[in-house]
């Protein structure tokens, strides 16, 4: 990637790599719309520079699965989570990571783990979809 090392990862992903599924929402790591995975860790890509992640394995929403077959994506479709959809890439990446750490999250753990903002108010469905994804992941494994 030919960008200065102080470029926030978000803008390198969007403007240089050209993957626009990762969204800009606030630029100060508050909203989570820009969440990507570095290894298995969820990272707000607006708050980390390209230099800091050099050589690391980064997954964006586009690379999560072939044909939207990741259990979290399937659960999102089954529960019909998105309204406007803008924050959902970040919600999904955060949920993937939450389920890595807590395969059977309680509602309370979802409350604590899911800090991404959604102005449309899809939270009740995000919660349902995480529980459903948890079940799907168990079926897979």
């Amino acid at each position, binding site marked *: 990637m030919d*960008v*200065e090392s102080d*470029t*926030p990862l978000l*803008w*390198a992903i*969007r*403007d*240089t790599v*050209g*993957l*626009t*599924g*990762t*969204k*800009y*929402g*606030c*630029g*100060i790591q*508050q*909203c989570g*719309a820009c969440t990507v995975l570095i290894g298995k860790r969820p990272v707000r890509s607006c708050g980390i520079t390209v230099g800091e992640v050099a050589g690391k394995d980064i997954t*964006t*929403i*586009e690379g*999560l699965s072939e044909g*939207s077959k990741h259990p979290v*994506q399937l659960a*999102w*479709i089954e529960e*019909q*989570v*998105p*309204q*406007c*959809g*803008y*924050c*959902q*890439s970040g919600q*999904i990446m955060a949920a993937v990571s939450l389920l890595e750490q807590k395969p059977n999250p309680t509602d309370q753990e*979802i*409350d*604590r783990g*899911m*800090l*991404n*903002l*959604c*102005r*449309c*108010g*899809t*939270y*009740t*469905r*995000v*919660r349902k979809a995480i529980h459903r994804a948890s079940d799907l992941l168990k079926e897979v494994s």
Partner: protein
Amino acid sequence: MKNTNMNRRTFLKVTTVAGGGLLVGCSFSSPKLLSTPQASEEELGMWIRISTDNKITLIVPSSEMGQQAHTGQAMLVAEELEADWNSIKVVTAPVHPEYIRSSKQSTGGSGSIQDWWEKLRQVGAGTREMLVAAAARKWGVPVEECRAENGQISHSPSGRSLNYGKLASAAAKLSPPDSPTLKTPDQYRLLGKSLPKIHTPTMVNGFAEFGIDVRRPGMLFAAVSQSPVFGGQVRSYDEAAAKAVKGVEAVVPIPNGVAVVADSTWHAKQGLEVLKLQFAGGDSTGLDSVKVNARLRAALDGMGKAEVTAEKVLDVEYEMPYLYHATMEPMNCTAHVTSDSCEVWVPTQNQTDTLKAVMEVTGFSKDQVQVHTTLLGGAFGRRAEWDFVSQAVTVSKALKKPVQVVWSREEDTQHDFYRPASMSRFQVGLGSDGLPVQWERQVAQPNLGARYIPQFGLIDFDPFTIAASVHDYPLLPKHFYKVEGVEVTHTPVDLGVPVGFWRSPPNSINVFYTESVLDELAHLAGQDPLAYRLKFLSASPRHKVALEQVAVQAGWGSPLPEGNGRGIAINDWPPMEEDFTVAAVVAEVSITNRGKLKVHRVDCVIDCGFAVNPDSVMAQMEGGIIMGMSAALFEQITLEDGRVAQSNFDDYRIARMRDTPEINVSIVKSDSAPTGTGEPATSPIVPAITNAIFAATGKRIRSLPIGKQKLV
């Protein structure tokens, strides 16, 4: 099913495209003479395009901003067209008079289904009839023996069938029907079903295209800075410093600020950082929240208090803050101006004013302008504005290159068209039966009506202080609560802060007032808040049913743990109209002995006529409730030194997962024509919560947000 426009003639227009296929246009205003082949090219293919390889594209008039207008409108067409639901594609319409509803081509007022219910079904039905006629002619059989189903016309006596693509060219040569026959509800295959939303697949894999995701060949990125004092002007900036930043190509003045244009967003932002931009003056110079309150208070006091003599008197004042829309996708627009044309790609709710803004900046005629509406990352009324359009077009016009303007969250927070701050006094006298004998209301707030209809400013009249409120204005339809002895006065207050539509103006202000006051009166009269409300609904049977049903659903009156309380409230939308949706909610809250508030559960009953897509209706109730709850609990814009004090989600808090209650929605079964669902739930949840706080603690919330107010 009620069909008010059943007899209106629809004039379909059709033609073939190069290589065959069917383009269906439709005019609701022009005579049939305009049908093929006399109709002009641009009037055709406006609603349905069927290609010979059987690809079906539906062109829908409303923007998709999360309310599922695309899915709902496609269902209306596809139902009557008998299209194969899984093979259709949906796009937002370009700018054209045929897509105007009331006076503008715009999306709002929760009207995407209500306003297009008749027209879109007629377009579908007329096209279906032509495909059937084409098949009958081809096979030499009577039309009555042919049947359209799931994208095929079949003739069962002979066992023949053809898909729509194969019939498209032949159908295009036929004369369109005047009055296509619409299905009866028992024939529906799609309507009334919770079909999955059309855009869900691309919203879970990152490929949905919002305004900010538009990419054009050679496109540049622009970051903008606007005067933090409203109406302020640019005084100075260091253009050379910005241009010295790598990748920065230009610095371009925009109406109230400056844009730095670069080869990437990051470079543009870096250029803006070193621009040393200085502003001067402005309409809100020196304004702060203390002064806002003082001005509203002075206006309120200027109206003078009423004399109220009755057995019991309620005398209270309420106030509400400015609110920010906070769409997750910040304002943005991509424009490409050439010497004789302009294209814009924009997440907009308002194509009419977008077009006007482009014409104004470029001086072009409307034929030289193309508006492409992308998906909208939230809107709630903010994207009915066009300030960001003018900016992008201004910059592209200067550079003659495609340019994308994206606002930072800080710009977005500080340059909104805010929901107006408001202050209102209620003095209500109750008779011996506990019912009002005198109802005096005064209200002071910025004139929202004048923002859209400037003439209202000349006569100091603001209908937005009246609608959704018990009132005495003789020419306006009455509120659903039948109350005697009402006198309402209002004073508009111009504070120099831009105001605009925020998800259900005026209800999002007035329903808090009205439903709080009703609750106060019930307690003053010593009556149950539900039973008390029902006494005012003798002429509003749908409201009565919704309230009674939500009470049963929520277990109204059943015992609760210590520290918990329930509150009830009701709303209709749009206010003062003949066809409306009713939404009733009950909120259950708890307050710990340290005063910590939690909304546990919300029950909602909605009567929106026939529910075209019940799951979408539920989603709008859930989302509306959460947005209203967020406003009640947390949200306020304050002013300091002439500018907005908040700048991002760290100081403008909105609801998160952990704030979200259990939400139970039920839909009243109805065979009336559908009415809107985007807005009805946002307003009543607010007083339902504050009424529940009163039930739990005896503390009456008369000022929003609830925020850090002491509850015990």
